[in-house]
């Protein structure tokens, strides 16, 4: 029989450990404990595909709450029910700052009875095979296809790097790839772009030159730019970026989690 997979995360490690132990011992669920870091969550959730995520909040700030927004992207891959364990203060902060749309709150001290009740409800749907749409609609848009996907333009003279960027991002974003600054401006004149990933070192028109041209044009000045840079010129790039003030930079080659986390930082 398939077991319900539950991922437990959050800053409150004591409660997270407690919940993990109870779930594994009392209910024989498949329980995964995961750090509350954005990149770790992003790497673990799509890989493990848990049906339920329990977040144990503790002394949260606006920034730490935003960390969990990455789950919105992960939820596009399949049904997830989100349960947040919090005191009243963290609960208010969470509601105020989260980008997530629907979740169940469980007050502290945790009532295991209530938690098991909710999990049994989820498990029943899961075992009956009616989980996907039903659970997805509990807290993310019920029709993800209708959600306007953000459009990212990647500009790099290396076709291999461009292909890898598309591989990393296509699950979550519409991605257009161009090999030069000239083509980037041609594309911008035709299509709306939400963010530009811009290679720093390119022949003819390099990254900083493209960036300056973008910022000089009121039509494109608002588009956030993340520079793509190699390790060798990282220091030089950082110096230049102090002047240019883009929205960030990513060192190439980059892992999927790093790239997506940076984009989410910028686009939300």
């Amino acid at each position, binding site marked *: 029989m398939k077991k319900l997979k539950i991922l437990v995360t959050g800053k409150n490690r004591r409660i997270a450990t407690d919940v993990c132990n109870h779930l594994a011992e009392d209910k024989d669920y498949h329980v995964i404990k995961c750090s509350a870091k954005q990149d770790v969550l992003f790497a673990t959730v799509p890989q493990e595909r848990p049906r339920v995520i329990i977040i144990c909040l503790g002394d949260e700030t606006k920034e730490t709450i935003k960390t969990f927004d990455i789950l919105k992207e992960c939820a596009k891959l399949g049904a997830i029910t989100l349960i947040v364990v919090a005191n009243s203060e963290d609960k208010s902060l969470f509601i105020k700052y989260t980008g997530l749309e629907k979740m169940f709150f469980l007050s502290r001290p945790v009532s295991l009875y209530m938690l098991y009740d909710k999990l049994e409800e989820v498990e029943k749907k899961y075992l009956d095979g009616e989980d996907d749409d039903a659970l997805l609609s509990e807290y993310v848009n019920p029709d993800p296809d209708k959600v306007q996907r953000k459009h990212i333009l990647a500009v790099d003279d*290396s076709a291999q790097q461009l292909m890898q960027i598309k591989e990393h991002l296509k699950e979550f974003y519409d991605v*257009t*790839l161009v090999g030069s600054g000239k083509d980037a401006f041609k594309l911008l004149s035709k299509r709306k772009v939400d963010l530009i990933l811009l290679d720093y070192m390119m022949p003819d028109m390099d990254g900083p030159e493209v960036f300056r041209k973008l910022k000089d044009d009121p039509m494109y000045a608002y588009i956030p730019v993340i520079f793509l840079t190699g390790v060798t010129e990282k220091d030089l790039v950082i110096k230049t970026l102090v002047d240019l003030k883009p929205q960030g930079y990513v060192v190439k080659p980059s892992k999927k989690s790093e790239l997506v986390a940076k984009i989410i930082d910028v686009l939300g």
Partner: protein
Amino acid sequence: MDISFLEAKGINTKVGIEFTGSNEKYISALKRFFTSYEDNNKKVQELFEKRDFDNYGIVVHALKSNSKMVGAMMLSEVFEKLEIASKERDILYVKENHNIMLAEYRDFVELIRPIGEADVAPPADEIDGEKAKEIAGELLNALDDFDDEKSKDLAKKLSGYPFRLTQKDQLGSAIKHIDNFMYDDAAEIIKEISKTIE
């Protein structure tokens, strides 16, 4: 596909899989590395002969990242040293190490040849002139829209038309331009060869 022979030759497949995202994507990245070799090798050699060390540095810089992405860490270092030398105008170092780099680049490509040449896509179905004209029109639109996936798909379908040898070569160049995201260059060629479709 078994990739253990790469590890035996010092390729860090773990790093490659981490950068590309999965075993399958790593193999795809190795295939792309393999197919891009001919063009990149030609480009870097031409720039070296022209003593254009600015653009030489840019090309080896890209090759450095590409090598690292597939776990060829030693090769990546070779490119990196040449990148730094060309930036610092250490021409002597570039001259002394250019051929060593070419040899190491070739050796790695030979190593991944079994992966690069595995599962080559079958040729496209043969199409008549009317269909070819229709596809060429769609392809020009896809290129104008910067739609790389659709362009690749349509260019492949177009290769099913029995072009003469010259046009066949031209279509091959157009496909290479699409692979390198040079949409305008590809469109120019497609416009030219479209005229020969009967």
